């Protein structure tokens, strides 16, 4: 995974937190300002809101780094392997012969950092598609090509 992906994840997270903060501030502020009776209660409410946003912000800052630290992937001539997860871990092995098709997708943020996600589709049900996000775009394209070759004997 490209280290830049941490930055991208943080940026995206920050954006969401900002939207959430603004959206939740409106009702919080209205309640705090209208309930003039008990002044300290509105203060507590605002404080709680501030702490919640702060914790959320901290998490969006830390989580991508943790996720980055626990993600490993590799490939050999038999297939693709992904090991990931901070608390709940998973360790997937996808045989190359089971790959139906692969996508390389880029969101707007990813595009500006020249990153991409590689999506591997199998005929399975639970893990019908496995996404490997935050690769550099050239690497994702290269991996896709690697996965495509040798898949020809798989006549359905």
């Amino acid at each position, binding site marked *: 995974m490209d280290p830049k992906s941490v930055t991208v994840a943080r940026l995206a997270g920050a954006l969401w937190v900002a939207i959430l903060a603004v959206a939740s501030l409106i009702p919080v502020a209205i309640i705090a300002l209208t309930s003039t009776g008990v002044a300290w209660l509105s203060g507590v409410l605002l404080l709680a809101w501030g702490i919640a946003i702060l914790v959320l912000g901290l998490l969006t800052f830390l989580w991508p780094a943790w996720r980055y630290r626990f993600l490993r992937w590799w490939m050999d001539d038999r297939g693709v392997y992904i090991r990931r997860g901070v608390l*709940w871990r998973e*360790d*997937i092995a996808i045989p190359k*012969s*089971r790959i139906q098709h692969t996508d390389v997708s880029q969101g707007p943020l990813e595009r500006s950092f020249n990153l991409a996600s590689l999506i591997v589709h*199998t005929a*399975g049900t639970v893990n019908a598609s496995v996404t490997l996000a935050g690769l550099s775009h050239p690497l994702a394209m290269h991996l896709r090509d690697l996965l495509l070759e040798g898949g020809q004997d798989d006549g359905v």
Partner: protein
Amino acid sequence: MESDLPTEVAGEQSEPEQSLHPLSWLFMTGAASKGLVGPWLLLLFASGGSYIEVFSVLFAVPALIGAFLKHAVFRYRLGAEEIVIRDGVLTRNERHIPYTRIQNIDLVQNPIHRLFGVALVRLETASGQRPEAVIRVLSLEAIERLRQRVQAQRGSRDKIREDEARVLLHLPDTELVRLGLISNRGMLVLAAISGLLWQVGGWEQQMEELSPELLRQFGETTADFGFGLGLLAVLILLILLRLFSVAWYLFTLHDFQLRIKADDLRTVYGLLNRVSATIPIRRIQLISCHATLLHRLFHRVSVQLETAGSIGGPGEGGEFDTRKEAPWLAPVLPEDRLPGLLREVLPEVDLRNLDWQPLAAGARKRLIRRGMILSLLGGAAFFPTFQGWALGLLPVFFAWTLLHATLFVRNTQYALADWGVAFRSGWWVRRLSLLGYAKSQSAWLAESPFDRRHGMASLRVDTAGAGKLNHRIDIPFLEAGVARAIRERIHAEASRRSFRW
């Protein structure tokens, strides 16, 4: 009708375009008007039907005309390598389905179909939840031609082996009675009947008039006889449910036959609606058996298949319904015949020679600990409101935890063989799933934080299919190292085999 689309390079075997069986309009309009039968009957018999009913009948007319038009424009052609279906009145639609992609061909024949020697055909491919094409209706002779095409294209293209179909399993009515006694199908039948009564009408008003009277009477009688009568009512209901269940299976699965011909399985069943489903053996993804307590009482198991083609299963009799269940290999089967039957279908699978492995040594302890903690938490949560009760129930929960953990661990086992993985679990309903390496997709380990504390992991294997079976390869509480080794083995075996749908 002249085709204005570019005709394909006509293969030597390509057939001219055909329309449906001349009587198709009957069945198409019939299907379209199915939902209207209730209102119609009401209109005919109920005195002075309300406006709504009149309108519903009026609205039916365009639907019927639409159905008739659909029949009139429907065309299909058996090409050299694909079937081409053209339909649609306003939006023209042309669909090409290569024979090699067809997973199963299902036929449904209700008594009227049989009278005219026609059947409804469902073509299924691996895509999605609905049949790729529903052809309503074709003559049996036309269907046979279609079947031969599909068979000829499949696998080795040498001549179709003209083996006589061999019957692997035939269920006499006695077996079906047994199945009815075992299963809970009666519940559904009861629901369907009450729904029907509702729809046919009259019932509604009668109920309204009757119910206060009924309730009053019921109240009086129960007051007189009290508990005993209530018990009797429940008993009667239970017996009734079983009877419905038996009747259901006698109707739907009557004369169930599982036949094998060359590389295809074919199941045929049903008294009024005769259903026949073809399942190519190599398209079986997963085999799953289950046995409830009642099954075990009768020494029976039920065996289902999962194919990548999603639908063709035991049906609710309807022709068009998206099936909720996976197809049967054997709705009911004596336990001791299971290994033999599997051998016939998949020669490499040897059920008697499996090296069953238990879960990790600490699994039972962990389950017990989890159960204890949960009971304690529950007890603590309910203590303020229930006090004595909460305390009194704790030993019960502890005992249950102990029982569950012991039986769970004893009944959850897995085995790796040369052909694939076997996994069984469950102590109330015992389930057994078999998956060949060639059909395994991705395999993965999952570790929860609790798993990690105990050095354990779960192993899961993904398969193609509709996921209608409620048992898959998902082995919990393995030692992490063991789980990794199994994953490696499955991955290596799967990589060596190429997957074919």
